[in-house]
């Protein structure tokens, strides 16, 4: 199948989720949250959420417990650095999925 059905004569796109592909594919390590340490979970009320605030990809939810959209998380690790409770750690993809090859 060719691209003739595409009516564009120059490159264009519309802003939409997934327009640029899923950036999660770029990741070499991913964040793992320990809910026992996460402040909003421990305090059972909306608080802290520094990971949500600092995530440059806006893939962390402001919920209890927090959730990370792994389709788009690039694995930058900023959340691990800003978490005052050290609740988030980065795990290498290849350690977690040792049998998968690229």
């Amino acid at each position, binding site marked *: 199948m060719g691209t003739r059905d*595409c009516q564009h004569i120059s490159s264009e796109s519309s802003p939409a989720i997934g*327009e640029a592909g899923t950036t999660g594919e770029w990741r070499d390590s991913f964040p793992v949250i320990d809910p026992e340490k996460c402040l909003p979970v421990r305090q059972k009320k909306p608080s802290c959420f520094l990971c949500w605030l600092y995530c440059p990809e806006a893939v962390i939810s402001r919920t209890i417990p927090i959730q990370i959209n792994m389709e788009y998380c690039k694995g930058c690790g900023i959340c691990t650095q800003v978490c005052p409770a050290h609740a988030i750690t980065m795990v290498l993809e290849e350690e977690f999925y040792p049998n998968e090859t690229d």
Partner: protein
Amino acid sequence: MILKNKKMAKKTSTWILDGNHAAAQGVKLSRVQVVAAYPITPQSPVTETLSEFVERGELDAEYIAVESEHSALAVCTSASIVGARTFTATSAHGLAYMHEMLHWAAGARLPVVLACVNRAMGAPWNVLNDQQDSISQRDTGWIQIYARNNQEIIDSIIQAYKIAESVYVPVMVCYDGYVLSHTEMPVDVPAQKDVARFLPPYKPHTILDPANPKNYNLVTLANPRVNAEGVLCHGYMELRYLLQEALQNSRETIIRVGREFGELFGRSYANMFWENRLNDADVVIVAMGSLALEAIVAADMLREAGHKVGVLGLRVFRPFPKVDVIKALEKSRLVVVFDKNISYGLEGATCSEIKSALYGSSVRAVIRNFIVGLGGRDVKARELVDAVNSSLLSMKEGDLSKEYPEWICDI
């Protein structure tokens, strides 16, 4: 002027104009909406005249003063993408400075029209005429049209908008610096309402609308990709193919637009080149721009001496009229190509294109190339005659192919 049919324009007037003022009149009649240009010799009077038109309210356009030619074309591409009819003009180093944006305008498929007042490239500094500047931009994806006189400048600019806006490829209208830009001659100036009949408003293929936001000319990877709506979109290479296809197919549009212009204004441009006495010619002189008219004088002199000489004056250099050239040169046994440019290390660009067009055809003519008129060196009809005579002589002596071009200069 004499009316030939009912469709033809009723009112035209003859003015005495130099090439730059003819270009500016063409821009004004085309109702251009955005002008951005940076002055450079010998193009400056074009920008000065247009700024006066805007200042006096004769042309309802934004005249944007810029700090460089690169910015001038950046303004034109940006304005074109949001739906404005745009114009810029430049020469030599200004055109070279625009190089990046030339690719951008063509790649984004924007119908920008640019007047290139042909001037020699430095070093050393030289403000006079040759065609090295526009020839050096041959591969940027622009349609290139060369004018032989001031009438063709005004007519070509008006047609350029119709061509560009039909095929979504930018058009460069080239004319020789000083030889045309600063030489006055009678020019038939069409009436505004007739040009309006000929040239419909510009319909952009890119629409900037806050309610339907778009990202234009974004990073585009090598391979096609499926967008969020599930459509398989072109990769970089497919877009390049489409630009080549547009130029390949533009020949038909250029001829149609030239014919329509002729029907309305009495001067037909339904051709990719001008021909003079090609019918029975077995020796053909090929030249481009004002040199193509000088060549007619030379051909007449050679005819008087008993040679069957015709002239092929290239009007459209890109797309190169391959099929038309083969047909025009069918009966020739000698083709003498005069180039006001040089592709260093090989030969004149026009000569290479002619040879390339003839490859695989039945034309078996001997081809000679002469480099002439660089940096404003005067080209006399007598010199063209001598070049043809010496080519005929060496051909007779069995010298069928020369490795490199000959130069008409005093070295």
